[in-house]
């Protein structure tokens, strides 16, 4: 009896060495990273994996040795994720990936983007009209730091003069405030705007409107003193990247909201997953744009002296970034 070997034992003895070889390679990959393997070892990996996978199938059908089955399952499991899990080697690769995918994601979410822009502009109009009618509302609507620009009454004369389009606080102050982004309360807004999509898109709409109304209120003040056009030029030049970033985050939010609010035929889960991926790219792109916008503002502020030139340079840099990021054929 002792001499007759079990079929499963023979099977195991024949294949055991290749399993251990795979185990060793996978362990080294997991602990050190795959870059440490030699080329021959890397070429061996898929071959050994397929061998282990077939061993697993065989073991499941003929062997009752639980240890072997469990071991092979774990080995194939680990090797599978090693081979089939995508890996991005560096942050640069990741950035390149984002830059390539962003235009595609934007094109796919055109509807959501237009919706965000529309809500924002409508709210701005609303804010502008309200402030024009009732100047007192300015203090409720305008953001904190702008409130300081205008004196105690919205029609105070000392703080706004036609030649000075840049914020009155002075360079050092502006630089400090801008450099503190993202350590700034408005930094939370884009995240909530994007993530709020799962809450049926309500936070997205509400926060977009807040942002729009703020801009509208401030614009109304400038318009009331016949500086409206100048203000618009300045705002567009300096703010376009940040607004675009906010709009992208809002479209991410609406992308997430769509399968939740309007459950599609194939089921919510699948649609949510597809929309979720594009939302992920949009939100990172949006946050990136906001950061770039702030950084551009900061750099231009400390390098260029002339206020009109600042506006011009800002405008061209912003347009450059937008054209680069949303070019037709990446």
């Amino acid at each position, binding site marked *: 009896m002792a001499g007759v070997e079990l079929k499963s034992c023979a099977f195991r003895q024949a294949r055991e060495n290749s399993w251990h070889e795979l185990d060793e390679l996978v362990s080294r990959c997991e602990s050190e990273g795959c870059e440490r393997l030699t080329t021959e070892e890397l070429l061996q990996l898929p071959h050994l994996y397929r061998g282990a996978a077939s061993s697993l199938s065989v073991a499941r059908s003929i062997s009752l040795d639980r240890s072997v089955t469990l071991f092979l399952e774990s080995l194939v499991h680990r090797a599978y*994720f090693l081979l089939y899990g995508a890996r991005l080697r560096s942050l640069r690769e990741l950035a390149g990936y984002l830059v390539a995918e962003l235009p595609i994601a934007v094109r796919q979410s055109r509807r959501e983007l237009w919706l965000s822009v529309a809500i924002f502009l409508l709210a701005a109009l609303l804010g502008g009209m309200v402030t024009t009618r009732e100047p007192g509302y300015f203090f409720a609507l305008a953001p904190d730091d702008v409130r300081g620009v205008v004196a105690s009454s919205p029609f105070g004369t000392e703080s706004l003069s036609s030649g000075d389009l840049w914020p009155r606080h002075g360079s050092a102050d502006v630089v400090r405030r801008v450099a503190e982004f993202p350590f700034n309360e408005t930094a939370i807004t884009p995240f909530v705007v994007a*993530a709020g999509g799962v809450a049926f898109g309500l936070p997205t709409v509400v926060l977009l409107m807040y942002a729009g109304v703020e801009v509208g209120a401030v614009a109304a003040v400038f318009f009331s003193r016949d500086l409206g056009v100048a203000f618009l030029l300045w705002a567009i030049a300096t703010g376009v990247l940040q607004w675009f970033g906010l709009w992208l985050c809002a479209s991410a939010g609406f992308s997430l909201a769509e399968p939740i609010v309007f459950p599609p035929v194939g089921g919510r889960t699948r649609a949510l997953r597809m929309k979720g991926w594009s939302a992920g790219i949009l*939100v990172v792109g949006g946050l990136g744009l906001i950061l770039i916008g702030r950084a551009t503002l900061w750099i231009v502020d400390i390098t260029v002296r002339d206020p009109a030139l600042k506006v011009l340079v800002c405008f061209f840099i912003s347009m450059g970034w937008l054209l680069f990021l949303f070019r037709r054929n990446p």
Partner: protein
Amino acid sequence: MNLLGASNDAARRSIVTPEGVQLTMHVGDMGRRLAAFWIDFLIISAIVALVALLWRSMAGGHWQVDPHPYVAGSYLVRMLYFTYFELKWRGQTPGKRRMGLRVTDRTGGPLMPQAVWVRHLLREIEFLLPFSLIALSLSPAFDLVSPFEAQRNVFAAIWMFALGAVPFFQRDRLRIGDLAAGTWVIEDVREKLNVDLAGEAGGGEFVFSEAQLAIYGIFELQVLEKVLRDEAEEVLRGIAERVCRKIGWNGRSVTDPHRFLLDFYKAQRRHLEANVLMGKGKRDKHG
């Protein structure tokens, strides 16, 4: 209802690899996931504290009284931390690695960067934003929020905690972030190969009849295997006695229970494997 969902059959899921092999995996239970998150949270807090200290020294030794910068700054650190680790380590962060968990795509595909991003974006509204909002609105030292805003924040926090509770009730333990990203968190496995019990030389002292081998099934065999590997002498003795009684052993008396059980194991395994090949595998002693 098993809220924490410890690892068992109910947690088992499977995917089929391109080679046609079915891989089973266990969905990670909430206890472990919370522990992994806690570890990551501690690491991130340490990093944020470090950055805040650096910032303070660069800004001339003044602490920022306004809490908003910490909130936003720590968001950036969190996002970068999770993105970096989950992409570099194929779905594991230091916390998850310690607890033996891994984030993977639910369909078995590769873990895409956008999946990682949207997972973490939505994590913010589940836990960290309500946490920060509550901290902001309830902290008396910061006179920054009006009563209206404080109320709004608390409502928002309640809503967000409700979203955060979703995985406790969801079958696959999916967070909102997992739902949107198409991922789930599974247990990472690492087994080592134990020596083959049936391959050991020697033995054959005890011989069993077909009738005696027909009593137990595959389940008992595998329990026996586990017992033989792990258990102590006294336990083996007790089990040997039980087996003797069950199969009606009337051969030599058992002085060495380990030897007896090992021979029984070998014989039983040969018997059952032969049956399995014939398609007559017996699941357990009840048939």
